[in-house]
């Protein structure tokens, strides 16, 4: 199972639809301060169902929708689609390709889809639970947060190992 493609539209600084194709190796994302690199990581968290405003750096849905500028008008919704290669059947679904989509509106509503079929947030969580990807605090390490694992309480660190078990 691996990430094939990430399509970002209207998410934070990604005003227009932007596509990232990921190879199976190491992909580096580079660029100046404030260009949008961490926003890509946020988009990935977000489409996987992240609800924490702190981890998303967005207190409400509005903060995550392209706010516009004098040269480009704001977006009225955000949509991110993550396409996963499931040829090895790692996800418990009968598809060799699985597309997870999340759409968000300025009023705060979210819609979730798996291969275009409308589902609930918990369906996304259950699908990925096998991956322990959404719960896992070691799949996405945010900026400035690498040391966090050293500062955890002992019981929180135990929880980290339970996720890996």
């Amino acid at each position: 199972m691996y990430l094939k493609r990430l399509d970002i539209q209207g998410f934070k600084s990604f005003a227009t639809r932007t596509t990232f194709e990921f190879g199976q190796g190491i992909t580096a994302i580079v660029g100046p301060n404030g260009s949008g690199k961490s926003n890509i990581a946020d988009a990935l968290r977000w489409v996987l169902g992240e609800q924490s405003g702190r981890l998303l750096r967005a207190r409400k849905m509005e903060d995550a929708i392209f706010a516009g500028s004098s040269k480009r008008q704001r977006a009225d919704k955000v949509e991110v689609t993550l396409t996963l290669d499931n040829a090895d059947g790692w996800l418990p679904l009968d598809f060799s390709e699985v597309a997870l989509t999340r759409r968000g509106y300025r009023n705060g509503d979210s819609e979730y889809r798996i291969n275009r079929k409308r589902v609930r947030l918990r369906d996304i969580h259950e699908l990925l639970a096998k991956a322990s990807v959404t719960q896992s605090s070691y799949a996405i390490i945010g900026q400035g947060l690498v040391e966090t694992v050293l500062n955890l309480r002992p019981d929180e660190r135990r929880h980290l190992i339970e996720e890996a078990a």
Partner: protein
Amino acid sequence: MSKRFETTFETVASGFEEYFQAFFGGGHARLTLQQGSPSGPSPDSSGESAKRTGQASQNTGVEIEAQPPGKRLQNMAQLSGGEKALTAVALLFALLQANPSPFCVLDEVDAMLDEVNVGRFVKALQALSKKTQFIVITHNRGTIEVADSIYGVSMGPDAASRVISMRLGDVKADA
């Protein structure tokens, strides 16, 4: 669950020591199971009873110790900025090795590392990338050099991000 926890714990703990030694060129690091209430460890702080019953009970915690080569055992607060980042990455990589996540996103985890340590970090990253797909946000040349592909992001005058995709081959030709 509890037998599985014990096995996973042993795997992560030994992986953590190996990664720490690879990153620091020696030294020691340990994860220990501590049986204890939140108010502090109980007499059985070696975690022996936790292991005997095979139970990672609600009161069991995982403590972490790190000793860079040639130095005395430190509490975490005394380590330097770069040493803390490296120790944290050692634990994260041990978790990934014990239970490979299909993918992992690292946002500037190498920011505090000097050149030698970036070199050790990327060596471990390359080995892990055989089982785990990595997306690495970085400003660091040493890290960029081991990438199979690179996306360059920039901010346009309309406050919208723009992206160009670069294959590593292209980048090296231009350098």
